[in-house]
């Protein structure tokens, strides 16, 4: 029972990690909490759904949904955030305007989805079974689809980790997010690099949407709760740290699974917020957040 619960927790934690990663990628480069992230993810999942209907093949729809997610992320930056930054005023409005704008964008995306696809619950199916693996007579609640979720998340996290750590693009992404001005003066095209960051974030959100949706249903708001969990995970991890996002997601996923299993399902979200409040009170910079003087 303990192992079963742990596996289920890892599966949902992996998804939270992906969503947290998407938030951290945008936060690091633009200092904006992208509330539109769940909207972007659900839109790319709808695109994946349409492609799977047309091709009858989930495996074709999955990479295309991820590509769509990257494109949507890039467009949100180009057509929306960059315009706001250009027109941005000074003072408190300048700080809060982009956040409010992402909330507005979330509403816009979800309304457009409602107009195109309606608000009904759709089924975006994967060929993998949602029934748990069976060992002898014992069936565990961890299915092939759950296993795929964990593998997909691990692959995405591994790719991002490699890119950030070992490639020139990763170095440019880190430099542009830590000190954009110095990066610019070193010859880095900060706007381009930032746009790639938005595309990566969009892709991470799209993977989350496309692998989790086959375990339930698709609707304009189907990823809203996932976003909340991803946000809590990102804050637990320190918002600035990619590893923090992953660990935050896994802690939350496993924590939720154990509470659901051993205490009560009614308590899961309450506990999420208690963890969040605890981290904010005891260690406001998150578990992996660094106390770095950005002007040093």
């Amino acid at each position, binding site marked *: 029972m303990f192992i079963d619960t742990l596996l289920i927790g890892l599966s949902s934690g992996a998804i939270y990690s992906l969503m947290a990663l998407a938030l951290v990628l945008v936060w690091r480069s633009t200092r904006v909490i992208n509330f539109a992230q769940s909207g972007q993810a659900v839109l790319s999942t709808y695109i994946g759904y349409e492609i799977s209907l047309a091709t009858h093949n989930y495996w074709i729809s999955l990479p295309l949904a991820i590509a769509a997610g990257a494109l949507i992320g890039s467009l949100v930056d180009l057509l929306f955030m960059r315009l706001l930054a250009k027109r941005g005023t000074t003072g408190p409005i300048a700080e809060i305007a982009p956040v409010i704008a992402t909330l507005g964008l979330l509403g816009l995306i979800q309304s457009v989805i409602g107009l195109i696809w309606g608000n009904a619950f759709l089924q975006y199916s994967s060929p993998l079974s949602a029934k748990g693996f069976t060992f002898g007579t014992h069936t565990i609640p961890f299915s092939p689809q759950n296993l795929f979720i964990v593998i997909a998340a691990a692959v995405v996290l591994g790719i991002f980790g490699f890119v950030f750590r070992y490639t020139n693009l990763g170095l440019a992404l880190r430099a542009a997010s*830590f000190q954009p*001005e110095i990066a610019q003066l070193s010859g880095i095209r900060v706007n381009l690099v930032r746009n790639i960051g938005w595309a990566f974030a969009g892709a991470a959100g799209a993977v989350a949407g496309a692998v989790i949706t086959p375990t339930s249903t698709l609707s304009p708001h189907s990823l809203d709760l996932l976003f909340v969990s991803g946000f809590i995970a990102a804050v637990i991890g320190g918002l600035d740290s990619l590893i923090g996002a992953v660990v935050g997601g896994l802690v939350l996923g496993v924590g939720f699974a154990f509470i659901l299993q051993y205490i009560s399902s009614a308590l899961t979200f309450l506990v999420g917020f208690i963890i969040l409040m605890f981290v904010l009170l005891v260690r406001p910079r998150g578990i992996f957040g660094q106390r770095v003087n950005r002007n*040093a």
Partner: protein
Amino acid sequence: MKSGLVVSHLKVNYGAIGAVKDISFSVLPGELVAVIGANGAGKSTLIRSLSGLVTPSSGSASWNGSSLLHKRPEQLVREGVVHIAEGKAVIPELTVAENLALGGLWRRDKTDVALATQESLSLFPALATRLQQRADTLSGGERQMLAIARALISRPQLLLLDEPSLGLAPLIIEQIFVAINHLRVQFGMTVLLVEQNAMSALKIADRGVVINLGEVVTTGTPAELVSNTQLREAYLGI
């Protein structure tokens, strides 16, 4: 056309405030010119407008005949104009090696990037032993060296240096200025050095431009400037 840096009637406004009111001067190729003035004289705004970080409201500025204005900083770096920002401009979260790599990231000629990196490290040997350390573990002087070393990897023709002595101990300042002078001698680089520390800057400069409240007060050789008692007391603080 090798006309060097030519700044003509440059004017930069910050909102309603004219930080740079009307500045004209030139720097010949291979020359080291120090722009000197008190805090708030408009030195940093001037240098930021030459590297594309701030857009001037009027006037002109060109490097070897090509305009510097209305271009992005990363574009100007590609044209050989490199600005080392004020305050030990390194990225503290990255390692020394990564900070150095930034200077050559955009360059296609990787063989020359490797060569330039070697040259930078032989100019500042203290960095060579700390390549894997994070930049925030370096001392103030080492960070300034790192900032200069990174700029060198971009192979600048015109180096814009903003207050390299800021917050450093006198002995370290001397080392840094010796290194800056070396850049001109060894690489034939043109240097525009913006400094509050007039004495150190004038020691290595060919000419000095004294500015106050966004305007040029006077220009001259270090000897001329230092011998002018009135100027010394009013603007140079020496």
